């Protein structure tokens, strides 16, 4: 769904890359527990937070995302033992780099959400959506075509 930038009340588009083992299951739990979180969030399931390449994140911004979230298991709980530890280093560097280029730091976030934290999943997504909504549409890495 292309977001109509002319809408008076702006609704952000948020892409959430969720690791299969923890955060995606956390999202499932939020759903089955009938917790609500904003429909602005589109979840993409990945095997591990460390599977998320910077290409995915940049492409999401290029094609209209106003915010990108990467969610994985809590450090120490990675299904593959250490994937999220590597991801933590990579994404901290990427976060700081995007900010260095002039991107608002809120637009790219990383969260650790376990399979049992349905409430946390809903809270993170709600909070993120509110933050990005307040920031307004992202134009900084967006393809203008």
């Amino acid at each position, binding site marked *: 769904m292309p977001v109509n930038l002319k809408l008076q009340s702006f609704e952000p588009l948020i892409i959430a890359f969720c690791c299969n083992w923890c955060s995606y299951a956390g999202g499932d739990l939020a759903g089955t527990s009938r917790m609500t979180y904003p429909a602005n969030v589109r979840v993409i399931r990945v095997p591990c937070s460390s599977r998320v390449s910077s290409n995915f994140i*940049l492409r999401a911004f290029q094609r209209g995302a106003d915010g990108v979230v990467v969610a994985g298991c809590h450090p120490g709980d990675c299904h593959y033992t250490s994937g999220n530890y590597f991801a933590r*280093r990579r994404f901290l*560097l990427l976060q700081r780099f995007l900010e260095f280029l*002039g991107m*608002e730091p809120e637009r790219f976030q*990383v969260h650790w959400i376990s399979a049992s934290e349905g409430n946390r999943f809903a809270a993170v997504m709600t909070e993120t959506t509110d933050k990005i909504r307040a920031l307004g549409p992202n134009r900084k890495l967006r*393809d*203008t075509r």
Partner: protein
Amino acid sequence: MKQLSEILKEVAFGSLSSGEAEMVIGWQKGPFWWQSFPAFITDPGGTGSLIWDPFSVSNLSKYLLKEVPEKKIALFLKGCDALGFNQMLRDGRVDREKVLLFGIPCDGLVDPARVEAAGLSKGLLQVKKEQEELIFYYKKGQRKAPARDFYYAKCLSCRYPNPVIYDQMLGEAVPCQPVERFADVSKLETTPLEERFSYWSRHFSRCIRCFACRNVCPACSCRECIFDLAEPRWLGKANELSETQFYHITRAYHVAGRCVDCGECARICPVGIPLAELNRKFIKDINELYGEYDAGADLDKEAPLLTFKTDDPDVSSGS
């Protein structure tokens, strides 16, 4: 410096005629005072054309990726080139046994643009370096000036003027007084977000996507580069700021932790994009977050992005 240039010819001749190497990669002089370029010599008789002068800036080790790997190749490395060579070694892209390395101590090379800016280029025939001075030769007469005033920016912040890897060192080690290399990054970090964005947009808009910064980089040694792939086509070919941003973010991020800060990308950019600042942002952050690390020099340390600590700083704050 003349002396070093003679030694260089001798060792090149020696290694080819003894059969120790089948090819020597060095530098040759072009018709203009500022043209020194990579030369590939297989015949001992051709080694007389090799030179070492204040413009021998090309990093010769990158050619090891392209040249026939079965051949044993002798080449010359400056301090910065040696770091790049080490990184290629660490990335498993060169075979140490197949190369013969001659180290060259180098306290800085001359940026032709600075000679031009100083108004010294008109009618200039040759530039030589003697001690700390440059001598500019013209049809009539000559002029002298302090060499350091004409060095590339990257040379002024050089911390490894003497090669960290070599089989034979040519000449005496030189001292260095590097200027603070993160000054520009620090300055940018403190400018307001929007200003920073327009700064980079302005620079990126000039990018013509020639890929010279990638091709010259000793850390860019992938056999296949995503920027060249038609399927999947990650990088489109349109002249669109977003595509250019994608290119530059990805290039710098991909060499993070492996960039040896040789500054070649920024030097050869035809439109003057300050690419070194992108790489240095990563180096600075890595140093601050995960401990000092000098790619190409710290061979006993683990590469920062190929390892982790359980108590690394967290990333999740999002604000």
